[in-house]
């Protein structure tokens, strides 16, 4: 990149308007550096005012060991951690693996499959709050749409979804998958389309089709993309407030909360902001390794290109 510039700037035809010596490099650079600093300034200001300061403030609020003792002694905390692990672990992996498989399905050359893509993407296009509220009302109890449907079609009484902790957490997970699987399917369709056709042809000659082609050709080629996307989704799922807050609403009796909603309740319902931040930040041991791996992966990609 800089090589190109050196060649262009140092080329003799450029020096016609000068005095014969190569144009001065330094003044040009310093003027541009000043411009560059001015251009970066707005983002730097945003970053300091709305990232550095709040993060430092959060760490300061949560930096008291007594808060963590209080957290662990709260009977709500441990179940919430388990819910969060389930929500993130099951939600993210089903979303990503499902999206990977479905991206192959949507690339099948059938007109009706291409038409199907539009309704399939609808959940992603629908605003999060409205999607979650619809899920909540569908499952609200025996008056809800799903139980009503079960009764009308099969004559069975559906369960009271929000009266059982496992069903409520499951409802949150399903809503998360419903909302996000379409988006990642599109990303993986894009990834699959970049695999050169010749590779699949060569694999077919060697007898790799169907499951074998997926396991030995397609998946290894998409592995890096899959890893990056899975880590990103994990970050989003850990911070997902809206789904747990609006689908199950913590029912029954705050037993289906995740860390984001429990922290919110501590901070705003019981006016213990420090405890709320501590609850949320207790997921840092999971967050930090993810971010480190993510940044390394993204950097490797920068070098590769």
């Amino acid at each position: 990149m800089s090589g190109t510039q050196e060649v262009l700037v140092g080329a003799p035809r450029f020096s016609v308007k000068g005095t014969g010596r190569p144009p001065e490099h330094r003044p040009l650079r310093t003027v541009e550096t000043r411009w560059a600093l001015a251009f970066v300034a707005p983002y730097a200001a945003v970053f300091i005012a709305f990232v550095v300061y709040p993060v430092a403030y959060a760490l300061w609020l949560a930096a008291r060991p007594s808060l963590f003792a209080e957290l662990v002694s709260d009977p709500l905390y441990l179940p919430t951690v388990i819910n969060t692990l389930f929500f993130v672990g099951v939600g993210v992996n089903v979303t990503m693996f499902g999206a990977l498989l479905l991206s192959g399905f949507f690339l099948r050359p059938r007109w009706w499959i291409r038409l199907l893509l539009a309704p399939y993407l609808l959940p992603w296009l629908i605003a999060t709050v409205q999607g979650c509220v619809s899920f909540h009302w569908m499952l609200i109890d025996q008056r809800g749409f799903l139980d009503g449907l079960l009764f009308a079609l099969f004559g069975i009484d559906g369960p009271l979804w929000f009266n059982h902790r496992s069903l409520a957490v499951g409802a949150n997970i399903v809503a998360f998958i419903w909302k996000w699987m379409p988006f990642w399917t599109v990303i993986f369709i894009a990834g699959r389309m970049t695999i050169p056709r010749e590779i699949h042809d060569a694999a077919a000659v060697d007898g790799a089709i169907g499951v074998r082609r997926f396991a030995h050709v397609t998946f290894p080629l998409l592995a890096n993309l899959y890893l990056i996307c899975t880590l990103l989704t994990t970050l989003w799922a850990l911070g997902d407030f809206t789904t747990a807050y609006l689908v199950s609403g913590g029912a029954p009796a705050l037993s289906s909360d995740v860390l984001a909603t429990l922290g919110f309740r501590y901070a705003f319902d019981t006016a213990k902001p420090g405890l709320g931040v501590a609850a949320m930040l207790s997921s840092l041991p999971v967050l930090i390794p993810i971010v480190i791996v993510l940044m390394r992966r993204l950097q490797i990609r920068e070098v590769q290109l």
Partner: protein
Amino acid sequence: MSIALSGGQAVRPRRKSLNIWVEGGSALLGIALLIWSLLPVYNIFLVALDPDEGEIEFDGNLWPPQPSLEGFRSVVTQQARYLEDFWHQFGNSIEIGLATAVLTVLVGSLASFAVSRLRLSRGPLLINAALVTYAIPASFLIVPYYRIMHAYGLADNLWAVIAAQVTFATPFAILILQLYARLIPVELDDAARVDGATALHMYARIYIPLMTPALAVVAIYALLLAWNDYLYQAVLLSTKHMTVSVTQGQLFEDVDAPYNAMMAAAVIYVLPPIALLLAFRRYVLASLFMSGDGRT
């Protein structure tokens, strides 16, 4: 969009029976996906088209026996409870969305231009710093945000939400713009430098026009982020500056809520982003396929 697929013609006779299974299986999968995707959407319409306001009950009719636009009428005329201020709140939502989109594009493109085209030393460091923003999920910062917005004098102000959304949208915007900027030859900048163009000229005359597709994608991304937000709008805003998102989220558990009108409002609220994405689908698809290209 043409999709090239291999292996279709190389089917041998003994695979014919297998093919029937594959076709049947994908038809079943297609039907299952259709039901899975549309069930909650259908539920929204079922409630919205109910003539009675207090009903979310499902009475066994797959199609409302007397579909009625009463819910929509009471939203448009703002006559339902909770929806007296609907259009004002809708305006607030639009203001937040548009301001977030414009500021994200501006701040993100300026920073990305400086790093990718002016070859700012330590530029990559800035990109990494930006990505660190995602180390702590946005919802975990709500408590400090609540406090610092008071300190900044932005309590109960739409700009508090806009600032928060711009903060969370810009790192992704910078990443996308960095990827896309590689497609523009640096020689264009060098030619402009020879003609004595300042950095501002290069930004306005070369970078912005050539980056339009990527900028459109970034703008849509930022707008959707703000449009989908619930937490920040619920915490940082109060009565006068409510948005549609907050009202819909807060009142859904009220047993007296006019459900049909609430869901009619939901339908109205989800339409603009869908229309926007349809209008810009070529740009969005192009950039998705470009970023997929970069990642494999």
